[in-house]
Structures are given as C-alpha cells and as structure tokens.
C-alpha cells in the first residue's frame, strides 16, 4: 500500500505496533472493495433505511430562526435508532467485519453511545461483542451500561491511567493486537490508524449527502454555513463531507471549551493557538499534551467530547483553512440546550448542544436570507441526570 494515501497532508498515518500492520492492510483492502461492491452497498443502505430509520429530517427550526433572524436547519441525527449518529458507522463496519469472516467485534466507548450502537449491531448480526469502558464512565453512564449488557455485550471495566475514554481506547487497542486474527475493532470516531478515519467518514457521509439534497430542495441552493460539534470528529466529518468541495459553504467545527480555554480543564485541540502535533491511538494529529509529550486529560461536561485528540482530517481541514474550529464552554452549551428545548421541543445531547450554542452566536453575524445547517448529532435522554444536576446547581461528575 502506498503510504502517502494514509495521510491527510501531514496528518494520519499508521502509528501502531508491527503486529497490526497486516491487519490494517486487510481491512483497507476489504473496505475499498466493499464500497465499490453493489451488493454490500445495497445491504448497508437497506439497514440504514429500514433499521436506523434514514433518511433523517432536515428540520427548519422556525422559532429559533425567528429569534436569531437567520434560517437555522437542524439535521436530525437524534432521531436515528439508538439515539445518535454513531449507528451509521457501526453498521458499515460490522457488515465489513462479517464479510471478512471475523467472529467478534470490540469497541471503545466514553459516554456509551458508540458502545450501545456496537452492542445493538452485534445483537442484530449475532456476533460476540466486548465494549471497553473506563471505570469512571461506567459510573457516570450507568443506563448505557445496562443497555449494552441487555443487548448481550460484555462491558469491560478499564482501570488504568485516568479510567476514561482515552484509556478505554488504549485497552481496546491492546486487546485487538492480541486477537486481530478473529476480532474486528469498530472504532467509533474519525480517529485511529488508516483506514479508520476514511472508513468512519465514508459511513457517516450519509449525513451530508442527505442534508445537501434536502437543503437544495428547501432553499434552491447550498447553505451558507454548516456546523457540527467535534470530539474525535465523526458526526462533524460526516456533516462536512459533501460540502468540503463546495467552497462557498463555511464549515465550522465546535469543540468543548469546558471551564474555559484559559483554564486547564477543556477539550479544545484545534480552536487554540498552541495546538501541538503528536501521535496517539495510531494516528498523527493535534493532541492535548504536556511538555514531555504525555497526553493530558481533556475536560467537558459532555462525555462524548471529552477526548484529548482529534481526527487527522480535521487537523488538515484547519491547517488548510477549509474549516474553522471554535470552542464553547460547558455553561454556554447548557444554556443552548435549554433554549432549544424550550423553543423547539427538542432535548439535544449535551454534545450537540455545543453546536447549537455556536450556531446562536454565528446567527448574529448572518441575515434573514442566509441559512445554516447544524448537525443535531444525538438526543439528550442519556444526559438527563447530568442536565438535572447541572440546573439544580449540583455540578456534575467529571
């Protein structure tokens, strides 16, 4: 395989142990073949439609638009089966795993959404499933742990390092390097060694393929702005995909600024001036790290944005100035969550509320004839405890 194709500019690559190199090559070959294979695509799209419930609506948020004086459309990924965009990618990867003859799938999860999606698909396709989850997250996200176990997955508690998503990912990689011969690792975000960032983008690009056509139908043109929240960057890369070559469309990624980017407690990798390049989880990209290259802990009220790195293509999109990245604090996100709930009757996931919050800020620079699409990546059901505690002034676990 030509090593250049594994990179987005200087980002990406395959920074894994030698024992995984042939595995990555096999996955790449199977993936490239599958996405050109009519019968694979037919099966994938069948499940997206009849199982997940696609296409999802592009909803014109009338009251929000009136209040902020510009057209705001919401891409309703929250209406997918399992409650978020994660299932789009999981179905693609599990069909690939099946095609490759693997018997077991594994996944890492932070908030539990990717774990639930993987456990769901594993039940559907009758595959053994192990989900690695940090000990802290198992406590924070108890309902999702129950869902995964009910679906027949084994949830493995990870008790090393910081006990969160980063460590769950480390442990999944370790387990994978032992078992790659019969195990497929379903990575949930647009991160990891090549071809994972490309696969995740491919399987999430249904978001922008639909949204582009839906917006064209409603407005007769492209939107002015497209926006999504960014943790590792899967819903955002899916939301951007079809618009990257449409240079008149402004692309904005919204990171979690936690308690503020001037504090040590945030998850902003791209929206700061001091981004530092490094390697983690098989990829070269911008990462939160200390002066010795040890990875720092990310902080956000949202477990899904709480990741100290970002997918390599996002690093490339930022440095090539095709997309801009901004930060939204916990407080701003929670206010936006309340606003959307009260104005539109939609309780968003806290992750997605970050994109809504910046959408409201951005609207102030726009006029009533312009339009933006915000990816509403997930629903807020999983966050009810966090939301209630936050507004009751009790703070939250993190």
């Amino acid at each position: 395989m030509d090593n250049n194709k594994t990179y987005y500019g200087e980002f990406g690559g395959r920074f894994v142990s030698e024992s995984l190199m042939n595995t990555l090559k096999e996955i790449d070959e199977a993936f490239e073949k599958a996405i050109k294979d009519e019968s694979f695509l037919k099966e994938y799209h069948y499940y997206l439609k009849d199982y997940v419930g696609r296409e999802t609506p592009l909803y014109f948020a009338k009251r929000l638009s009136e209040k902020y004086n510009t057209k705001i459309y919401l891409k309703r990924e929250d209406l997918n089966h399992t409650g978020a965009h994660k299932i789009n990618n999981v179905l693609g990867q599990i069909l690939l795993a099946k095609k490759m003859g693997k018997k077991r799938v594994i996944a890492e999860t932070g908030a539990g959404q990717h774990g639930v999606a993987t456990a769901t698909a594993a039940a559907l396709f009758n595959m053994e499933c192990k989900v690695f989850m940090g000990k802290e997250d198992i406590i924070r996200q108890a309902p999702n742990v129950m869902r995964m176990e009910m679906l027949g997955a084994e949830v493995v508690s990870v008790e090393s390092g910081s006990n969160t998503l980063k460590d769950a990912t480390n442990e999944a990689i370790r387990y994978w390097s032992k078992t790659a011969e019969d195990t497929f690792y379903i990575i949930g975000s647009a991160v990891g060694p090549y071809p994972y960032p490309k696969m995740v983008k491919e399987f999430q690009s249904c978001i922008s393929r639909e949204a582009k056509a839906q917006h064209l139908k409603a407005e007769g043109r492209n939107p002015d702005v497209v926006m999504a929240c960014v943790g590792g960057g899967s819903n955002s890369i899916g939301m951007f995909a079809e618009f990257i070559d449409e240079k008149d469309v402004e692309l904005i990624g919204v990171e979690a600024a936690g308690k503020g980017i001037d504090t040590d407690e945030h998850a902003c990798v791209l929206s700061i001036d001091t981004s530092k390049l490094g390697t983690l989880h098989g990829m070269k990209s911008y990462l939160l790290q200390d002066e010795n290259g040890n990875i720092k802990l990310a902080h956000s009220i949202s477990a899904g944005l709480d990741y100290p790195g970002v997918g390599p293509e996002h690093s490339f999109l930022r440095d090539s100035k095709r997309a801009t990245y901004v930060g939204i604090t916990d407080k701003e996100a929670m206010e936006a969550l309340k606003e959307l709930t009260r104005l539109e009757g939609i309780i968003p996931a806290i992750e997605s509320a970050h994109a809504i919050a910046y959408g409201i800020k951005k609207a102030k620079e726009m006029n009533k004839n312009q339009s933006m699409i915000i990816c509403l990546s997930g629903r807020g059901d999983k966050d009810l405890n966090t939301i209630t505690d936050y507004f009751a002034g009790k703070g939250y676990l993190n």
Partner: protein
Amino acid sequence: MSNRIEEKIKELNNKGEKAFITYITAGLPDMKVTKKLIKAKEMAGIDIIELGIPFSDPTADGPVIQQASYEALLAGADINKTFTLVEELRKENVIVPIIFMLYYNTILSMGIEKFIEKCNKSGVDGLIIPDLPFEEQGKINAALAKNDETILIQLISPLSEDRIPMITENARGFIYLVSSMGVTGQSANFHKEIVNYIKKVKKASKIPVMMGFGIRTPKDLENVSDIIDGAIVGSHFINILRESDFNINVATEYIKDFKYQINHM
C-alpha cells in the same frame, strides 16, 4: 565511531554466546535506583539493557509495564532526566549498550533532530519504538543516518509474514522477535507456530534474532533455545525487582543464572 550494540554482537558471535537482555523502566522507583540497577546489571554480565521511558498511554504494554510506567511518571521521571542519567553512567565508565524503549510521541514532542542529537551525545545506543512501524520510519531514519552512534531496532511479529524481508533487509544490531500476539508480559504464551515463525525470521535476517515478550525463566525457552540468538525479559524482571523491593543481589543472581543457562541448554 562504531555502535556499542553492534560491537557487542560481534563479541557475542566471536565467543559463540547467546545474548541476555533485560528491561527496566527509567525512574522506577526513582532515578538513583535505576542507576544502581544498571551498574549492577552490567557487573552481572547482562549483554544489553533496554531502558523504558515512561509514557502516559503505553498501548504496546501489558499491566506490569503500564503500572511501572505510571508510577515512574508520578515519581517525576521524564525523557530529559533519563538522558542525564545515561550521560552520568557513561562518565562513570558504564559501557553496556543501552537501548531506549519509548513511544513515538515522546520523540516528536522533543523534535526528531534534537532527540537524536541528545541520544548521540549522551550515549544511547539504540531505539525501540513499538508504535513506529517500518512505513513510518522515514523521518527518524534520516536523522539517524548522520552517524552510527544510535541505531533503530526492528521488531517483527507473528503476523508480519510477507513483511519480514522488507523489515530485515537493512536492519541493524539485532532483530527483536515478538514471541506472541499482543502486549508485553503475557507469561510464556508464545504463538502456536513459534518454531516455524522463528525459522522464517532467522532465514531472512543477516543479524541475530532475539526473542522477547512473555519470557520468565530459561525453561520457557526449551523448544526454541537452539534457534534464537538471545532472549529479552521485561515484565517478569520488573516483578522480580518489586518482589525483592529492588534488591540488587536478587537482580544479579537472576541475570547470572539466566545468562548461564541460556548458553548451556
């Protein structure tokens, strides 16, 4: 100037001896003890020392080295202090070859050129970078090519198969043959095709092949001792150190015994 690892290999070849290599984590429990251990290991007749640089996310390591790495970081160990340690050891006439085992981000963080310069100057003879496979080695090789003082050690795994010729072709020092799938410290659970696998690597390699991962005692090597050129012990050596509260005599005895037995099997 030539390379200490390659000099050692020549010496072992001349004597017809198999090599014994052990791993320790730099700064566990502190740099003073690490220094004492390295000196004691040299005295005990160790051939090469693998010195682990602690990292926050050691994905190629099992629980023992993860924990060692974590504790060393908490105790304040870092790459600069480890360079200082090696520099001091060289000044104190320690000549045993020292290989840094570290993750690529530690190098990137310092800058490749600066890092290699520091290796050359302080007396680090080799590098093992478990998350830097052959295809990603271009940049570091360019920096290493300037002189012979520091070399990159190549790893081969049971799944390397068709990659073996490519990896062994220009490899230097020795080949680090990973005995099993997965991470360090999985207790003698070698790959099911271990003998054929080693033979394949031996056939392709012009330099000695040392086996590591999951080795605890010379007995673990019964079936392979004829074909390998040396053994590397990591996790188990850390366990021995911990159990004896970092007793130098226990470490010395273990090394002497292993080195003797591996050459008399």
